[in-house]
């Protein structure tokens, strides 16, 4: 028997003994209240802890249980058991009804709906005098005489203690059951949950129902033990206290529900002589707990808990387990003339292709080309406006994401979406159970809990090459493992079509090679693989056919070798031949450094992106950094302005280190970033955007400079009083640059200015940049359009996987055919 069960049983035994030996009704009463509150906490913990929906209205369910039970026994003279059952059902029904509006909303809005519910119930109790007795309430509620119990207080208290113990055990079982995992999965990531076939709505409604039912049951026992109910016991305040009990004990922990209830009931009794101080102490205790143990009191015990023995998958990756491919069919996935628009922009514009079983179809294209949108259309997260997606006889374009998942279309996400609080194994378990969760009461009884890791899930993990502990929490995994586990999770749903969204992004060369082999092996088992990827080497190596997208449209489709030579593809990637005007200038003999970066290391959270990058920009120069997507170009610019913290290395700007300067003071120093995606302030008009560009300026020249900007960009003058969000992409880019110039930069940083712009706009944008350069502005430019960037640049750096691998004069690079290898 494990230690946890022993402690639990001991506490249970002590409580029973205390109830048996209690010298007077006061002690019995307190014990009974602890037990009742424990049941409420367990109920609320299912909703708030497991399913992540905070309720500040549980006194409402408590009241409904108490009044329904009391009325059935008093007025209808029902037997206790029947009254209890109907009261629980009434509360559950109310929970389901409330989940209607509650599931429409989230965050503070959800809190509001539950608060409103609680207060409405309380006021109705007061108002509906003929039924509830109004302020006076109901009295003379009989003690139960069931299961051979005498209708006396002591035996009722013993009864509710047993139930409270069972409810805590039941919570622990639920948490280990696929249902409990499903609650947590939906809380962690509803979109990923839908992608593995769960119904987030149904799961959340069930959380409401079970939570309300338990709280209602507790309400009946409350009425029975006190013998009297009145609206005073079911106030807004009571709801807050219930929530506080759960938080104090520890959200999502079984024992926490008991500990919270114990504190909530016992503390006021201890402070009996200081009644005025009760809530003061309680409030302070809560603040203290939140500060010292944000995860509740139970989390303090966790450090003594014996860690689960590590279980690792087999080291020799087997073939893809058979159960994964049992669903495969010999029918292709056909996409025909698929289109969708967002706000007038054609994100996907009549795209067609066919994916045959056992093949890999790669979708490539510049950022913003519509690749992920295409994937979202196939997996049902968006509905196409026209066109068809068929898988055999099934019309996927008419279905929602869950039905599509059930038909065997499985996917991964660009920003890996694991269920972060679940273990690796549980991520797979949720996915493999998917829609077949079964009846929730079974979960509360602990039926269908797997004790040992399922061998077939371990096989899938070893197949994808995951070698860590299967009990590790997903949020703690290294980056590569997150990707692998996400692929494994997609596989255990038994897909016929596997959609992978940039699986190689951020991986090292070695990891990419392993990944390429993995994808190949998945496809060769007969699955249809559709892959979005920026790493051209990987795409060219493993795909059977490549679909190239640009601005929503398919510009090329065929085998890799053919696509590679397509001039349209080259133009889309390198921007070659989009300008006829000569924008070059003679090399500049600049030597005064403005910016010197030395050995910069940085990244996001656990993911290191830049590994020891060094570069220099001199006075009056236009320097460009080129490199494939994911090489770290934008990361470099963000870390220069301290939007990302520097892990190590120096940034020296005009002889000053910027390491400790907060981001908002950087602009005033003269280092100004025009960010990727423009980031104009959509709700403000053009002139206000420009004013804010000069926010830090103390001089009187702002108005004059705005005038100058409107002069330079006549399109902006025409639209000066329009909200920036209504401008076209090209105008927004103009505005972003103008806004940057308003800050009087000594060095202007430009991040992907040509992104998502039509070719003729790109040309005029580059003409603008060239003229800025000729006016003497020092510029560091990062852009996907390498050919154009090299045309206006004086010097260039080539960035690969976080390091500068080549540096030189831009003119030497202009006709360098090696350069396209960076992209292909």
């Amino acid at each position, binding site marked *: 028997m494990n230690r946890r069960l022993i402690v639990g049983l001991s506490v249970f035994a002590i409580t029973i003994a205390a109830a048996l030996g209690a010298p007077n009704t006061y002690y019995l009463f307190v014990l009974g209240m602890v037990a009742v509150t424990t049941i409420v906490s367990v109920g609320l913990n299912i909703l708030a802890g497991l399913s992540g929906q905070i309720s500040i209205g549980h006194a409402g369910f408590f009241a409904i249980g108490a009044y329904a039970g009391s009325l059935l026994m008093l007025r209808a003279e029902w037997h206790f058991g029947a009254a209890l059952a109907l009261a629980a059902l009434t509360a559950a029904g109310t929970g389901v009804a409330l989940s209607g*509006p509650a599931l429409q909303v989230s965050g503070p809005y959800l809190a509001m709906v539950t608060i409103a519910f609680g*207060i409405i119930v309380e*006021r109705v109790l*007061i108002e509906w005098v003929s039924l509830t007795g109004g302020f006076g309430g109901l009295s003379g509620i009989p003690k139960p005489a069931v299961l051979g119990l005498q209708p006396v207080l002591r035996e009722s208290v013993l009864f509710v203690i047993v139930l409270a113990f069972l409810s805590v055990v039941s919570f622990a079982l639920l948490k280990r059951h696929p249902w409990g995992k499903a609650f947590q999965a939906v809380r962690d990531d509803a979109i990923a949950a839908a992608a593995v076939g769960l119904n987030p709505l149904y799961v959340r409604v069930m959380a409401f129902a079970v939570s309300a039912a338990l709280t209602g049951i507790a309400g009946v026992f409350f009425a029975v033990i006190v013998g009297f109910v009145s609206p005073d016991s079911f106030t807004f305040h009571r709801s807050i206290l219930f929530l506080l009990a759960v938080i104090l004990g520890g959200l999502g922990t079984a024992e926490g529900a008991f500990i919270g209830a114990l504190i909530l009931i016992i503390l006021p009794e201890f402070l009996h002589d200081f009644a005025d101080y009760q809530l003061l102490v309680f409030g302070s205790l809560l603040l203290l707990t939140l500060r010292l143990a*944000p995860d509740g009191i139970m989390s303090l015990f966790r450090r003594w808990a014996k860690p689960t023995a590590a279980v690792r998958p087999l080291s020799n990756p087997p073939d893809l387990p058979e159960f994964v491919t049992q669903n495969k069919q010999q029918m292709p996935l056909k996409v025909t003339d698929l289109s969708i628009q967002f706000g007038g922009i054609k994100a996907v514009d009549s795209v067609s292709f066919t994916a045959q079983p056992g093949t890999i179809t790669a979708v490539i294209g510049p950022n913003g080309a519509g690749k992920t949108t295409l994937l979202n259309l196939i997996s049902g997260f968006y509905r196409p406006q026209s066109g068809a997606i068929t898988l055999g006889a099934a019309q996927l374009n008419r279905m929602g994401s869950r039905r599509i998942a059930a038909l065997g279309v499985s996917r991964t996400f660009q920003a890996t979406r694991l269920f972060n609080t679940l273990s690796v194994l549980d991520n797979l378990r949720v996915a493999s159970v998917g829609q077949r969760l079964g009846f929730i009461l079974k979960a509360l009884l602990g039926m269908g809990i797997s004790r040992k890791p399922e061998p077939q899930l371990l096989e899938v993990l070893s197949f994808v090459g995951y070698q860590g502990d299967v009990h590790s929490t997903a949020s703690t995994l290294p980056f590569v493992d997150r990707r692998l586990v996400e692929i494994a999770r997609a596989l255990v749903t038994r897909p016929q079509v596997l959609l992978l969204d940039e699986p190689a992004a951020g991986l090292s060369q070695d990891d990419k090679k392993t990944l390429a082999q993995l994808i190949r092996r998945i496809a060769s088992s007969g699955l249809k693989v559709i892959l979005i990827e920026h790493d051209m080497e990987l795409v060219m190596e493993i795909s059977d056919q490549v679909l190239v997208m640009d601005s929503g449209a398919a510009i090329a489709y065929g085998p890799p070798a053919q696509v590679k030579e397509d001039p349209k593809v080259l133009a889309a990637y390198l921007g070659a031949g989009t300008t006829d005007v000569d924008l070059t200038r003679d090399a500049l003999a600049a030597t005064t450094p403005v910016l010197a970066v030395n050995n910069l290391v940085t990244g996001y959270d656990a993911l290191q992106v830049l590994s020891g990058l060094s570069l220099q920009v001199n006075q009056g120069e236009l320097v460009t950094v080129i490199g494939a997507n994911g090489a770290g170009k934008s990361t470099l610019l963000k870390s220069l302005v301290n939007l990302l913290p520097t892990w190590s290395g120096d940034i020296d700007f005009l002889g000053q280190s910027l390491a400790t300067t907060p981001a908002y003071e950087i602009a005033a120093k003269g280092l100004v970033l025009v960010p990727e995606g423009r980031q104009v302030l959509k709700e403000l008009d053009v002139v*206000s955007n420009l004013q804010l560009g000069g926010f830090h300026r103390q001089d009187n020249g702002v108005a004059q400079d705005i005038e100058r900007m409107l002069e330079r960009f006549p399109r902006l003058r025409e639209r000066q009083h329009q909200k920036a969000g209504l401008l076209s992409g090209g105008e927004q880019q103009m505005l972003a640059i103008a806004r940057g110039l308003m800050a009087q930069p000594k060095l202007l940083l430009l991040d992907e200015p040509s992104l998502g712009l039509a070719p003729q706009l790109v040309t005029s944008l580059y003409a603008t940049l060239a003229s800025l350069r000729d006016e003497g502005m020092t510029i560091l430019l990062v852009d996907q359009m390498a050919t154009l960037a090299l045309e206006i640049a004086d010097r260039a750096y080539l960035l690969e996987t976080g390091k500068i691998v080549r540096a030189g004069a831009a003119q030497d690079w202009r006709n360098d055919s090696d350069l396209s290898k960076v992209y292909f």
Partner: protein
Amino acid sequence: MWPQLILSGMAIGSMYGLVALGFQMTYAVSNTMNFSQGAVVMVGAVLCYCLNITWGLSAIAAVPITLILCAALGLLIERWIVRPFARNGSQSWLLSTIALGIIAENLVMLTFGKEVRGYPSPLAETPVSILNFGVYPLELVIPVVGLSTALALRLLFTRTLWGKAFQAASENPDTARLLGVPVTWLIALSFSLSTALAGLAGMLIAPIANVSATMGTLLGVKAFATAMIGGLSNPWGVMLAGVLYGVVESVAAGTLGGSYREIVGFIVVIVVLSVRPNGLFGRSQVKKV
């Protein structure tokens, strides 16, 4: 009877609106709220009562002092009750501010006392007659103060550079930082402004609703409801929702009976939110995969 109900509904409603503006303001820049706003309303009323009535300071001095103290309280709340609990996307700030509200209420109960005290005010003694209906002058003053505060805030946000910086910070904090806007500082400022508004509401409502340690709780909840049905993205919407909510409540209480005030009011809240999950005047968020 109707004009009277509507007028007093507008008066109480613009109080909800004032407090709700505070919720809206802090949520806009920081995605956090001070759930002890109701307690701050009470603190404002109690402070002003002590200064003005107990210690005999003139109202001209008591009102600005109370406002300043409430604003300072906001800074403290942001720094010590919200910021440490709002890191890495945690929701603990919700509970820590609720806890603060409980503490504040009970501290006041211990020091100020449990009894309900009337706040004598020349504006709430003799009703004036308008269209043959008697209303207290204060009931006319309150909506005027409420709406002109909303108007002043609107002008502040749309006409001044700092107001625009504030809008920038709420729309896109990273970009605002790039432009040189001290976002962290603005967040502190928004809390301070929000508690000042709550304090103002407390002072305005004291002569009508009396002063007690528990006067703020329900008002805070209703102000929160107002912020929700107004939609958190629009100050005008919040103020308008406050007035509407006040009128609905007042009419329900006047025609159906006292405790229908909350029943009808909160049913309206649930219905509005289930039909418009982001409030009546709120912007919907785009689902992004």
